[in-house]
């Protein structure tokens, strides 16, 4: 037993030829988030506090598809969503359709703690944010030039792009799609367990590039993108529709509970058997302080650490834990 933490910054078709100037800020962010999460665990902060603070950090970082840096809807706007879950109580909170809230994950937590509900969306969620006095800004704050470019490219190619992890190639023709068209979405997430076995999970995203206005993905759906109970905590990323139908996060826990699989076995099984290749990744920790990171995409920005000194930062699958 001991604490453990894992962070993810999105699974997708991240080319191994990714230029250093694209890769480095993301790796640095993973490293930084891991550090602040580990420091918080060492300072005895609850896993719920830890996952929230790490995800806030990633939301504030414009290199990831959450909060600032969120990909754009087909109308060039930002609609953010997030969810958080506490393993002990299985209390959860979720939000969708946010346009001005600086930290969606924190609003999700407030929904969990301050309302009799679990999930608030769109105007209702924005109104709640104002009532709660959370930080809100003009939605232009979240929009980056890179994402404007990305949207333009995709609209020109006239298809829904699932992969924000592909760098923008300004002069190149549109990327040749992979077999079924696209690789995967970016999301950010964090799972943590303390030395008492308390677990928590949090996930946040801007969704798909060029998504329809009003489209909700797996991230705010408890059991799909986020899940935590007294066995494990899971945060999933990937093609939202695939993650949702496979109830990925819940299934990892269910396999542990009902089939007695270990955390690693359960995660591997779900990623290999329950979602098509190229569709998903996840990070998970168990009550025993184990950690696993699994993906069936080319890459997933990720990092993890455990109390016994293990730590890892990675992008591609060859580096997988």
């Amino acid at each position, binding site marked *: 037993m001991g604490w453990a933490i894992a962070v993810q910054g999105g699974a997708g078709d991240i080319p191994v030829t990714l230029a250093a100037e694209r890769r480095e800020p993301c790796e640095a962010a993973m490293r930084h988030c891991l550090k602040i999460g580990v420091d918080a665990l060492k300072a005895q902060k609850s896993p719920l506090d830890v996952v929230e603070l790490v995800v806030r950090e990633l939301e504030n970082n414009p290199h990831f598809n959450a909060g600032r840096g969120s990909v754009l809807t087909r109308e060039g706007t930002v609609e953010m969503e997030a969810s958080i879950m506490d393993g002990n109580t299985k209390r959860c909170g979720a939000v969708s359709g946010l346009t001005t809230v600086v930290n969606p994950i924190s609003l999700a937590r407030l929904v969990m703690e301050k*309302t009799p509900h679990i999930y608030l969306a769109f105007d209702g969620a924005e109104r709640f944010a104002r009532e709660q006095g959370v930080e809100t800004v003009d939605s232009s704050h979240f929009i980056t030039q890179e994402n404007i470019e990305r949207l333009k490219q995709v609209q020109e190619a006239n298809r829904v792009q699932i992969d924000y992890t592909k760098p923008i190639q300004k002069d190149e023709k549109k990327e040749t799609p992979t077999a079924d068209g696209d690789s995967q979405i970016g999301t950010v997430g964090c799972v943590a367990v303390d030395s008492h076995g308390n677990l928590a999970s949090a996930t946040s995203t801007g969704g798909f590039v060029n998504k329809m206005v*009003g489209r*909700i993905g797996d991230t705010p759906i408890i059991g*799909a993108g986020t899940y935590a109970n007294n066995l494990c905590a899971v945060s999933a990323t990937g093609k939202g529709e695939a993650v949702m139908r496979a*109830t990925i996060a819940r299934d990892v826990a*269910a*396999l542990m509970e009902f089939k007695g699989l270990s955390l690693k076995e359960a995660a591997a099984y779900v990623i290999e058997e329950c979602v098509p290749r190229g569709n998903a990744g996840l990070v998970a920790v168990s009550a025993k302080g184990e950690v696993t990171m699994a993906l069936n995409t080319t890459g997933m920005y990720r990092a993890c650490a455990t109390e016994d000194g293990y730590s890892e930062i990675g992008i591609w699958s060859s580096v997988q834990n």
Partner: protein
Amino acid sequence: MGGWAIAVHGGAGVDPNLPPHVQEEAKKLLTRCLNLGISALRSNHSAIDVVELVVRELETDPLFNSGRGSALTANGTVEMEASIMDGKGRRCGAVSGLTTVKNPVSLARLVMDKSPHSYLAFSGAEDFARQQGVELVENEYFVTEENVGMLKLAKEANTIVFDYRIPAVGSETCSAVAESPLQMNGLPISVYAPETVGCVVVDNQGRCAAATSTGGLMNKMNGRIGDSPLIGAGTYACNLCGVSCTGEGEAIIRGTLAREVAAVMEYKGLSLQEAVDFVIKERLDEGFAGLIAVSNKGDVACGFNTTGMFRGCATEDGFMEVGIWE
């Protein structure tokens, strides 16, 4: 065993003092819906078609809390949500925040079949509805006098009205709801159950499907999403079974109730009834809910820990039953 099976529900959590004529109306509606489904099944319609047409019927009838007759938000408006799932391929569609779409379950189906996504909500969903040319009406169409009255009561009590008829199950007879304020999500609120509606079907090819539709909680915050549109919570279908849940939304979400039934069948090898019993008994903690389910083998089952659940079920071998109480 084998053959088609169908179950419908109109909500879990029933006032033991519900007037007999309302009970009769409810049973008649459930029977009518069952018969609609049965005749479609006999004509070899697929499970996914049958669940949609049955839930449409439930939405159109103002008796239960979905479509017309939906519970009202704090603003006195209606915001409806629904989801549908096809066990074959586990394709799914869901909608939330609908205000003008006459049949939410049909829009959910269109999201599944005609959009690149699985879940659309609020103005985006309404835009999609317009593009798809589905039947649209004014929001007032969905509002019934009875619910206007209910909302007023709820506001007077300044609470979310969840279930006026859920005394704690298993407690002494006539346990008074009024006495100890029941809790929902740890916050004290009066409890009044709005009925959700749902249908699960296995067709004669062994394909399962499920659909759920609701107006949500009386006096809910605008923008509040419950369990009904959430895949894995209110609705789930895979190649083993189809499940639709009703009751305390929050309990159903945190328990990922619909998925749970399928997961224990899949990972623990439980039968449908065992799975349903397990989930109701072990996965609700202090929550109140009910569910209906069918298996690919033609079994049908329902379970609830509330005082009653409006339900009906039928199987190809001639079994048919409509009920409210235990």
